[in-house]
């Protein structure tokens, strides 16, 4: 019960800092879901793809002697393979996207744990890899408090913010982005105008799964450098919720990610302060907070949530009349 640990400024700086640490996977995955959804493909397999990305990143980094770049490259490769497979089933074969999404969630999670067990096995002390080093932004990181909280993070954290801006610009300020979104809104009209619906949807799905997979890399590379079966822990599913909350818009997805990162950071802050504050609740009950928050947020926004008009529906050029 030392009063030193209750230094408010330190706690706030630490809190903001951890919000930024937790925000990156939410941003990356929800952006993946958003981009995929904007092209008309509802990919709910995010949780599984993240786990596979995490597992492959760990293994590739570990066996390349700690080369993080190789690890992330493999995660991108996983994203491409999963995205093309998902696209083949949902775009070319026009299968139900929820059925394929559920199956891919289970399959990818299975593969993630299988690969880890095949290459590493069950060990008493799990092997670890070196994590991404923080990059201190010159000048800005010297600002008292703010520098520590905002400008001493690893590359992927900064990159995730850049990606939000980039995808907003590409989707909403360019002609290609307009075409891309039109495929998710009204594929028939887009097709009539000569836009290649299939190609755009494949690109959207694959970019989506790449982002999800790299988001898994981040989980391995950011803090512990370990792979565990519970490393994703619902963040993939929550990110799908963020995409819905964010009305399939990159900037709103950023807002949603900030919201959930704040909740997650709060959970760990409360856990660490439990003895100081005299909270007598089991630590696991605090861990349910992000999931309860998701339910509440979804209940508040769902009715107003605007989906891309054609999301979830396969496009069939020869279908005589659209029915929905």
């Amino acid at each position, binding site marked *: 019960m030392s009063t030193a640990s209750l230094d408010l400024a330190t706690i706030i700086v630490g809190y903001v800092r951890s919000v930024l640490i937790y925000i990156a996977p939410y941003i990356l995955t929800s952006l993946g879901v958003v981009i995929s959804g904007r092209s008309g493909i509802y990919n709910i397999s995010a949780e599984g793809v993240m786990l596979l990305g995490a597992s492959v990143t760990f293994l590739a980094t570990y066996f390349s002697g700690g080369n993080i770049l190789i690890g992330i490259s493999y995660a991108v490769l996983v994203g491409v393979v999963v995205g093309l497979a998902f696209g083949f*089933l949902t775009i070319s074969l026009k299968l139900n996207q929820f059925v394929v999404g559920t199956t891919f969630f289970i399959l990818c999670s299975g593969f993630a744990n*299988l690969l880890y067990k*095949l290459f590493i096995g069950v060990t008493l002390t799990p092997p670890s890899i070196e994590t991404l080093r923080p990059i201190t932004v010159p000048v800005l990181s010297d600002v008292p408090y703010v520098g520590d909280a905002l400008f001493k993070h690893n590359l992927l954290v900064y990159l995730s913010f850049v990606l939000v801006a980039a995808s907003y610009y590409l989707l909403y300020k360019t002609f290609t982005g307009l075409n891309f979104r039109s495929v998710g809104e009204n594929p028939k009209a887009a097709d009539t105008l000569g836009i290649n619906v299939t190609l755009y949807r494949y690109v959207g799905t694959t970019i989506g799964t790449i982002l999800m997979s790299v988001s898994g890399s981040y989980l391995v590379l950011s803090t512990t450098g370990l792979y565990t079966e519970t490393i994703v822990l619902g963040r993939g599913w929550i990110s799908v919720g963020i995409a819905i909350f964010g009305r399939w818009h990159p900037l709103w997805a950023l807002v949603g990610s900030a919201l959930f990162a704040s909740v997650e950071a709060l959970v760990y802050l409360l856990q660490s302060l439990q003895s100081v504050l005299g909270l007598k609740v*089991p630590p696991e*009950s605090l861990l349910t907070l992000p999931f309860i928050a998701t339910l509440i947020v979804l209940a508040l926004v769902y*009715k107003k949530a605007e989906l891309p008009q054609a999301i979830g529906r396969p496009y069939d050029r020869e279908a005589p009349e659209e029915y929905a």
Partner: protein
Amino acid sequence: MAKISLTRLAKISLPYILSVSLAFGVAGLILYFGGYDVISSYRTILTASFWNLNSFFLTLTKFSTLLLMSLAFLTPYISRKFNIGVEGQYLMGALGATLVGLAVSAPPGIHIITSILTGVFFGFLWASVPAFLMARYSVNEVISTIMMNFIARYSVIVFAMSLWRDVASGHPMTIPINTTAMLPLLSSSPPLSSGIVFSIATALLLYFILAFTIFGYELRATGTNPRAAEVFGVNTKFLMPLSLMIGGGIAGFGGALDVTGYYYRLIEGMQSNYPSLGILIALLSKGKITLVVPIAFFISVIDVGTNALQRIQRVPIELVLILEGLLLVFILVSESLRWWKK
């Protein structure tokens, strides 16, 4: 005549045979690159259930859990709702049964029935949250049921670590329930839980409800074409959430049966990967109960086989998930390719 139907049968079954072979082929490749003996692994996977009565009874026990879990997914799936919350509902069913089994003292028959019914009710209640959110706020049930899974997992840990914690165990679990709440065994050595009787009864009951009652008809109509069903006076806004809650009750029944008939306590992680296997079984069967039963049995055989393989050769248990997932993917592909050619 017989010849024609035989070729027809061959034509219908060919894609499925191909899919099964392909899925096993990929599993074989994984085993091969993992450095295992592929042929003997196959033999173990397919035959371990029949090595002795003990492993056969184990297969039946797994089968009864898997059957209930797939029915819990299948019932809402008939009205096109995705109950990915089977896991949470199963766990809450187990928690409810454990609670009554530990906290109440009653004569054997009554105690068993109240424990199990409480489990069913807990599963039902757990699914009613997503059902309510769906009916009232039109929240997509996929996300909400998943969120309930995570909340259930932590609730199990909290419950297992509190009042009735088994201090002798390093793993979060409760002490055994009172003997009065234990379901009688069908066979005592080797042990066979009577849960299998209840799960098969549930499948039969559900089959008749879906095939021969107005409720079943309306549920199927809702799933086939919700708009048309609504035009013809089916209350789809009521049926969809209700089917989700019934699914929750079935999953809770599964959890309660596993506690009162097999584990006799609440154990963290007792659901293993069965919720995923159960969902895949339901998807494989395309909503047909007549198919769920044999597929669930087949998957339990593979599961027990893979478990044996893990004990003998340390082959990762995830192999069964991958095998089943790939099987579903290949069957979906082969069916749509056939549809494509037309």
